[in-house]
């Protein structure tokens, strides 16, 4: 490509043209944005959505998505797999639609980010450069933060807080357990991925025990005294699982501070509990690559400007999803998907030389309480001046003491939500 060697003069030529015609600065910026490179780390709910929306907002921009797994396994609805109502196959999504959209997929693990050189290093040795980087790496487990809970322990006491083999391991352990057994779940202190998730899972495990292994019982040992949708879950547990589910809060000696995986024993301050099946939901932090990129603070999570989703710590790097500090927005797939769309709009504006705009954001999380009933929590937020806030008077949980029809309607809405959100993210 002989003419390509003249590329260096393009900018000069354009500048020259601009100087003798009426071309505005924004035309030059429009030209510039077509050459822009956007790299996205993580092909989950945040990353896949961000890649697709950047590509649709700025069709001429090169978008590369870095994700090591050829197939993504979704966490939302994975508690139904654990409860025996759903196949893991229904949780799987590939990246074919993204390829069709013109997004490049780098099937690799990002091992380093150089925010000065604006490059990402992959485990296959290649180095990608970017103008803007969007990171949605989800969570990492803080191995060892709960004494005795390391990678090997997770093979015996699954966390199932990243969906896939861990989900199936917990399901198989429940299936293999003899009737009369004790299932123990340990729930962490906030913040963690999916605040109502442990309690949805507890409901669906109790539902399985009640129907298939009625002499068995689930004990939840909690590091908190309150949790998301608590009155709704407690109402459901009293109604549906009075003989199959016990919840122990932190002030009732519920906080687990040590485990022994070999004997499936969980220790609280004053007690030790032997489990036949143990589900340890451990303390978490932002996906490890966030630390490498220098976008985490002392909490292990990522502070961001809420309007642009740009890291407060590194320029040109945007962070979305579970990895961020976005409270009062929860760490949910709904939030990750919406943050991805708003972040993509912000990145498109920044690459076009425009200012970012604040907006109104919403979140809805449904939780199943039985195989065909669900409850919900919703919130409405603003992201003015770089900070998130809740909109007064909006949001809240499903009504208490509601008819079965209302709970069943929310279960149908949950299924529609799952279909829509996954098709927005994965096509």
């Amino acid at each position, binding site marked *: 490509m002989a*003419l*390509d060697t*003249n590329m260096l003069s393009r900018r000069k*030529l*354009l500048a020259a*043209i601009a100087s003798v*015609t*009426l*071309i*505005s600065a*924004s*035309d030059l*910026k*429009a*030209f510039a*944005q*077509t*050459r822009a490179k956007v790299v996205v780390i993580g092909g989950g709910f945040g990353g896949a959505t961000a890649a697709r929306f950047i590509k649709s*907002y*700025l*069709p*001429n921009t*090169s978008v590369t998505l870095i994700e090591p797994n050829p197939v993504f396994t979704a966490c939302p609805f994975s508690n139904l797999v654990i409860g025996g109502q759903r196949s893991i196959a229904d949780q799987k999504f590939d990246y074919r639609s993204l390829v069709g959209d013109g997004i490049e997929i780098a099937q690799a693990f990002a091992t380093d980010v150089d925010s000065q050189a604006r490059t990402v290093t992959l485990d296959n040795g290649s180095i990608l450069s970017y103008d803007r980087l969007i990171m949605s790496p989800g969570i990492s487990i803080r191995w060892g933060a709960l004494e005795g809970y390391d990678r090997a322990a997770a093979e015996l006491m699954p966390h199932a807080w990243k969906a896939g083999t861990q989900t199936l391991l917990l399901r198989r352990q429940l299936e293999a357990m003899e009737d009369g057994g004790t299932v123990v779940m340990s729930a962490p202190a906030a913040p963690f991925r999916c605040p109502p998730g442990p309690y949805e899972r507890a409901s669906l495990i109790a539902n399985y025990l009640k129907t298939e292994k009625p002499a068995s019982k689930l004990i939840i040992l909690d590091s908190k005294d309150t949790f998301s949708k608590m009155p709704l879950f407690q109402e459901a547990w009293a109604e549906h699982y009075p003989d199959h589910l016990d919840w122990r809060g932190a002030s009732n000696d519920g906080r687990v501070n040590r485990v022994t995986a070999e004997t499936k024993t969980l220790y609280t301050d004053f007690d030790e509990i032997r489990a036949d099946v143990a589900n340890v939901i451990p303390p978490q932090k932002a996906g490890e690559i966030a630390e490498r990129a220098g976008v985490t603070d002392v909490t292990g999570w990522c502070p961001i400007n809420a309007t642009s989703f740009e890291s407060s710590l590194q320029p040109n790097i945007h962070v979305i999803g579970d990895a961020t500090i976005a409270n009062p927005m929860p760490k949910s797939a709904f939030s990750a998907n*919406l943050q991805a*769309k*708003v972040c993509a*709009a912000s990145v*498109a*504006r920044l690459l*076009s*030389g*425009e200012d970012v*705009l604040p*907006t*109104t*954001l*919403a979140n*809805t999380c449904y939780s199943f309480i039985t195989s065909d009933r669900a409850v919900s929590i919703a919130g*409405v937020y603003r992201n003015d001046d770089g900070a998130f806030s809740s*909109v007064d*008077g*909006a*949001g*809240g949980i*499903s009504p208490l003491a*509601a008819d079965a029809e209302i709970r069943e*309607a*929310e*279960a*149908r*809405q*949950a*299924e*529609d*939500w799952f*279909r*829509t*959100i996954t*098709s*927005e993210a994965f096509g």
Partner: protein
Amino acid sequence: MLRPISFLIIAGALFLSSCSTLSVDAEVDTRPASERNYPNGLSVSALSCTGCHTDTAGQGIPSLAGRSADQILASLRFYGQPDTGTTVMHRIARGYTDEQLTALADYFAEQV
């Protein structure tokens, strides 16, 4: 990456015309920023809706396709009333001003 030949066409087009709505090449969007693909102003807030509402109706969540702005606004205003209803839409609509609800209704009416 831009091919040199298309680059020259674009450069020529820019040279010949300062009219920025010219679409001379799929590779360069020469429209002013306000006419580009990405959402502006209140339409950004519609992004909160599309995580649930698509153009096909589900068994629990209605589609907004084919509905007039008046129909959508009437529903949103109904949901936005204080202290009624059991769905998430009641809890969500209360977080929006009437101006925002009107803009959302207009936006979705145009998406048909």
